[in-house]
């Protein structure tokens, strides 16, 4: 949040020279070509980039769904993943992730979705306090408690994402990763999600990493913005710095132009 002072040396997540390539039908595609990024504790970092550019791949490395080809992922000062080492057991529960389409468990009701991991990780927790927690979380995402018995298939896209956030918050994570939280939503619903991201941030003092290509969302929620371009982070700055930067690629992205501005390109 703007105005909150952040200790400069406290990083929640650090990426060092992260590389990842995927085999495709026509050869090998280098998606990440040496990504360096530091995310400070308590800040909201927005990672911008084109579709298919590897933004989600970065998130999946942070939370251990993918293993790097080279480089390091460091969480809370601890090296979690390198090509040789891959151990997320100590930090898994500190992190939560909101998936692009919500990824709710289809076979469970909304309430069960929210409570499932909680009950599994704390088998002795009384049923009453689980119910209370579900009700609180539903309130937090502005859903009527009656929604607890609905099935995910009965929810709209925006609602699914909100429930997914509630499911993530049920485990009290310290770091929340948002994978394109506003993609596929109308502008008003998008803004509801943006407000939820801000609210989560202020209420739970979490570190948030938001991957998006929605500029309105980026400027609204970000403390800092990073730009991923061709497998590298080419820019990191506050929203104001982002608006004012002369970096032609960032400007192109902000304005949504098909061509690079030749004058700006010449100036760099």
């Amino acid at each position, binding site marked *: 949040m703007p105005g909150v002072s952040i200790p400069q040396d406290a990083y929640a997540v650090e990426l060092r020279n992260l590389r990842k390539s995927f085999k495709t039908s026509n050869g090998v595609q280098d998606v990440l070509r040496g990504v360096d990024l530091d995310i400070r504790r308590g800040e909201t970092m927005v990672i911008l980039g084109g579709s298919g550019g590897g933004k989600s791949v970065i998130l999946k490395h942070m939370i251990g*769904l993918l293993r790097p080809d080279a480089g390091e992922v460091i969480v809370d000062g601890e090296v979690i993943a390198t090509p040789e080492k891959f151990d997320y057991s100590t930090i*898994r529960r500190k*992190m*939560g*992730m909101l*998936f692009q*389409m919500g*990824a709710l468990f289809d076979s469970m009701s909304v309430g069960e979705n929210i409570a499932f*991991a909680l009950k599994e*990780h704390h088998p002795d927790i009384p049923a009453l306090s689980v119910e209370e927690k579900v009700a609180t979380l539903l309130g937090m995402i502005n859903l009527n408690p009656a929604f607890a018995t609905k099935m995910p298939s009965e929810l709209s896209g925006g609602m699914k994402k909100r429930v997914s956030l509630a499911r993530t918050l049920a485990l009290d994570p310290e770091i929340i990763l948002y994978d394109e939280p506003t993609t596929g939503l109308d502008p008003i619903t998008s803004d509801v999600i943006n407000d939820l991201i801000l609210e989560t941030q202020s209420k739970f003092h979490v570190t948030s990493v938001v991957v998006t290509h929605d500029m309105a969302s980026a400027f609204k929620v970000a403390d800092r913005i990073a730009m991923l371009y061709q497998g590298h982070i080419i820019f990191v700055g506050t929203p104001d710095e982002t608006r004012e930067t002369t970096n032609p690629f960032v400007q192109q992205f902000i304005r949504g132009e098909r061509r690079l501005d030749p004058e700006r390109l010449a100036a760099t």
Partner: protein
Amino acid sequence: MARTNPLLVVVEATGEATTLFFGKLFGALGRMLATLGDLFGLVFQILWLFRFTFTKRGWLLARTQMMDLGVASLPLVFITALFIGMVAAVSAKYQFQNFVPLRYLGTAVTQMVFLELGPVLTALVMSGRIGSSIAAQIGTMKEKEEVDAYRVLDLDPLRYLAAPRVLAGIVMLPTLTMIACSLALIGSWAVAVGGLGVTSYTMVSGMRLFFRSYILLVCLVKGTVFGGLISILGYYHGIKSAGGARGVGEATMKSVVSSSVMILMFDFLITFLMLF
């Protein structure tokens, strides 16, 4: 233009086709061996995870799968089993001609049903029903990032998705096989008495003749192994699927094909080990 010898063309084409055929065959064998290697590790991990079934919530997950995969399959098993028995009676009668006395009809049918037809045909039918359904379900869950969601919530997909299904397969398939065998005997009795001119007394006493409970054990072992094969292969192909609807379709197909082949291979193995 150079004239080509038609004989040469035929030989060349045959050669190419043969190379292609063996290439495909060995490719398929190679893939199958790789799959077997993967599966071997998976089997032990899943067996170890069965310990969670003894918790209240673990049992709930397994019970749901047992209902979905096992109990809901009863109508299908009911119909197939009756026909298996009926066919067994008619074809045994045909093979007896007039050389073997008809009092052995029940004996032959019983041995055939418990040792081979019951377990194998039930398993083949069930691989189409539950193997494909597991593969499609897990494949779709993977596609919709639900499997990743389990991982992110620090829930092991093997424990929550694989173990309950495999346990259901291992418990429910031998149960269904036993039910199927009993129904097959009833079917064969009905056809023998109704259509083949055998008296009920002759048929039933034939069934009891040479009956050893050992054949029930063989039947149960086959059912258990086949149940494990079907559910593990369903999960394996589902979790390996990639590439949207096409990938899920492919996974479903692979699960049915590979479990059918494996059922027949393991059928031979078990028969050889237990009866030879």
